[in-house]
């Protein structure tokens, strides 16, 4: 079991700071989601962790830098891009080449090819691979030596829904065997199901590092929407019972925080106010993520025309 400790990672390109004093841990036995808007520094952070990019800070893999391990492929397997292969080297030869780096058997190469559903294209040149097939080959390279830690950058991009479900189950199973998995993704709904721990960054800075349950509880908000034609009488009753801070205006009624629909129904009934809609609204993980990273978005889109 390997605990990955990234400390004070920092990377700047000229005056632009891509990763700013970022520290976190990736623990074994769980899938850690790595979230952030485009350009927030997720990929750069992963490259810094692996020593591929030169910057400040240190990443320790069970207390040691990666280059002190005589056999790094058994410590970490990484998948950073779906196009990292020679276009004319067959998928099988690509994996056999990397197997030579880790003294992995040919049997294991064939196992991984089968696991990734690449048998029919194993002898083909990957230059014609779709994004999804490239992702599968990249995942195959990452898991080839059965490393203690997996680092995956947007591995679900381009995968079909069945493959995404497979990936989710596989990574959860992989982590359940006591290994560490750090996976970045923009598919928040997938992260919500897959990740046990979540690290959120924006503009290279850490915004959250907590369990997914804590993140959802802290970041998501719940309120009750009530629509009524008797606005004045219901407002008076709600403010009297719950306080002015809990009640805010909403189209055709009010949004009330910190109460149940039953409570709002009772208050409306006692105020003799007709109720046209009574809805419990819970913000999704996506809303929570957007709320948390709103200020840290470097490449925000314009409005919808």
């Amino acid at each position: 079991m390997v605990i990955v400790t990234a400390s004070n990672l920092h990377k700047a390109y000229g005056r632009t700071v891509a990763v700013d004093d970022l520290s976190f841990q990736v623990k074994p036995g769980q899938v850690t989601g790595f979230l952030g808007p485009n350009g927030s520094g997720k990929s750069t952070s992963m490259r810094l962790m692996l020593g591929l990019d030169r910057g400040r800070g240190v990443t320790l893999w069970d207390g040691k830098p990666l280059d002190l391990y005589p056999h790094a492929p058994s410590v970490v397997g990484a998948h950073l891009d779906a196009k990292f292969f020679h276009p004319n080297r067959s998928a099988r030869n690509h994996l056999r080449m990397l197997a030579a780096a880790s003294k992995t058997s040919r049997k294991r190469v064939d196992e991984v090819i089968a696991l990734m559903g690449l048998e029919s294209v194993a002898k083909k040149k990957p230059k014609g691979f779709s994004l999804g097939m490239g992702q599968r080959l990249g995942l195959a390279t990452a898991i080839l030596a059965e490393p203690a830690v997996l680092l995956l950058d947007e591995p679900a991009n381009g995968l079909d829904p069945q493959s995404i479900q497979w990936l989710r189950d596989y990574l959860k199973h992989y982590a359940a065997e006591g290994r560490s998995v750090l996976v970045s993704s923009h598919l928040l709904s997938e992260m919500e199901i897959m990740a046990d721990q979540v690290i959120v960054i924006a503009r290279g800075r850490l915004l959250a590092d907590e369990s997914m349950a804590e993140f959802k509880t802290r970041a998501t908000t719940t309120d009750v929407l009530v629509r009524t034609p008797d606005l004045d009488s219901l407002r008076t009753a709600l403010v009297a019972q719950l306080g002015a801070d809990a009640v805010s205006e909403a189209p055709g009624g009010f949004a009330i925080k910190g109460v149940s629909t039953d409570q709002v129904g009772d208050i409306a009934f006692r105020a003799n106010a007709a109720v046209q809609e009574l809805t419990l609204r819970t913000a999704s993980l996506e809303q929570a993520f957007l709320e948390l990273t709103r200020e840290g978005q470097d490449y925000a889109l314009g409005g919808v025309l």
Partner: protein
Amino acid sequence: MSELLSFEWRRARSIRTTWITSLFTVLGVALLAVLFAGVSGVDGGESLPLQEALESVVVTNPFTMVLISSLAAMAFGHEYRYGTIRLTLTAFPRRGPVFFAKLVITLLLVFLVLAVSAGVGYGVLASSPMAVSGTQSWAATAWHVAVFGLTFSTLAFSLTVITRNHPLGIIGPLLIFLMEMLLLPLIAERAEWLPKFFPLTAMTNWFGGGADALWGAGVWVAWMVALMAQGFVLLLRRDA
């Protein structure tokens, strides 16, 4: 280190470009040897000194220079071009051994190809009725072929690491060769001492013996070491 060498060897031999370039080198040398053998003796002319002719068809021609450079540039050229350098450096985080493993496998490959090419070239040249023993010894010929191979491999290998540009790594050594040929007549009139500092001129002076041989050897070694060191340091310092 054995895993790294095994990885590098598999990397080199698992792409068709390596085999095609090697085959083209051997065939090209054979073709040049046929041309040499065919030209000698025309109109009852000169004989064919084997050692000198072999040196010309195996190394001292632009065709072989480009193909040797192509083989040497692949070590890092393909890695940067297709992003696989990140896979390599994830598997082998210590960059120094990666550099030397690539160099060892590159030189091994180049010398294997040159040895086969020299064998084929000799076979063709020796079969000519005009073939005679040259003034140069076979040991000197073998030494010259080896140094030429090493020079162009080193230039291509280093230029590719330094520039991270595969095509430049291939044509760079040829450009240096052509520049020296074009610049030398211009420079020689005004600054006679300057050409002695050019890498290929220094090599030629070294081979030519005489007073400039030691100086030539020194300048040649300095160029090769400086380029290698530059490539090595940049590999260590830069983002992959």
